[in-house]
């Protein structure tokens, strides 16, 4: 019974996930795309839950769907989301090749997983109750993955500084740069 319920939830979450994913890339307005991504992240969180990763699921909702997407929406709002036709522009072969490449990758991964599904991937390990709990995650972060934790913080710091540097107003015009064209044509 529990199994069936899980299946039902999985099917909803999975299709929600795929549908919102497709929506992200096919909306012409970035604003809608961003909204669709939130849906996507949410369904992912559900999938994480089904995989017994409570902490990650929570973090996904809080950090991603919460913080990051808000930032996204903010920027989109700031820029005034210009809509573009999702398929237009660029050489035709580019789009065709894009479909081909993405499709090939998809087929390949599916085939690879399918090849393996009958074998190893069907025997999941049994896990302890604490698996995926904040306690376990916290312990791991402070023991085996101490360094990863630290690095993550550094990367965030770097990114924050970078974001400021890039996003901030230029304080001063450049004096002699007016003649600077990157390709060396004389002005």
């Amino acid at each position, binding site marked *: 019974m529990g199994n069936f319920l899980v299946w039902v939830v999985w099917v909803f979450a999975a299709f929600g996930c795929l549908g919102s994913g497709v929506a*992200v890339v096919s909306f012409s307005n970035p604003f809608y795309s961003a909204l669709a991504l939130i849906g996507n992240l949410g369904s992912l969180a559900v999938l994480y839950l089904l995989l017994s*990763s409570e902490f990650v699921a929570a973090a996904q909702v809080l950090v991603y769907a919460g913080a990051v997407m808000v*930032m996204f929406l903010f920027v*989109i709002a700031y820029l005034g989301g*210009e809509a573009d036709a999702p398929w237009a522009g660029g050489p035709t072969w580019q789009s065709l090749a894009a479909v081909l490449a*993405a499709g090939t990758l998809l087929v390949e991964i*599916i085939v690879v997983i399918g090849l393996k599904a009958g074998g190893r991937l069907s025997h999941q390990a049994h896990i302890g109750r604490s698996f995926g709990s904040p306690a376990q*995650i916290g312990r791991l972060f402070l023991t085996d993955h101490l360094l990863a934790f630290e690095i993550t913080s550094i990367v965030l710091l770097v990114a924050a500084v970078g974001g400021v540097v890039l996003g901030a107003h*230029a304080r001063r015009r450049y004096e002699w740069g007016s003649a600077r064209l*990157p390709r060396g044509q004389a002005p």
Partner: protein
Amino acid sequence: MTIAMLGPEVSWYLAVSAFLFATGAFGVLVRRSPLIVLLSLEIMLNAGNLALIAFSRHHGRGDGQIFAISVMAIAASEVVVGLGLIVAMSRKRVALDVDKLNFLRG
């Protein structure tokens, strides 16, 4: 005191992850708006995360989850820098269209 896994086995999750990855890649490949390209990148990273967590469950080991959490932070960082760039571009009145960013080529 262990729990067996309920619901679909890991390969189904992986299939979803693969689909997401392909969708994200497709988005990067065809979209011209840098914002949507960034969103597509997020989808790809999330596909990776889903795979990590699925495998983490599969092996019953926690390090996949740790990885996934770190990736979230990384994804956030990339978004920050990416959005910073996009804002800077709009300040410089550069069209927000990656196809028009072809000054450098050849």
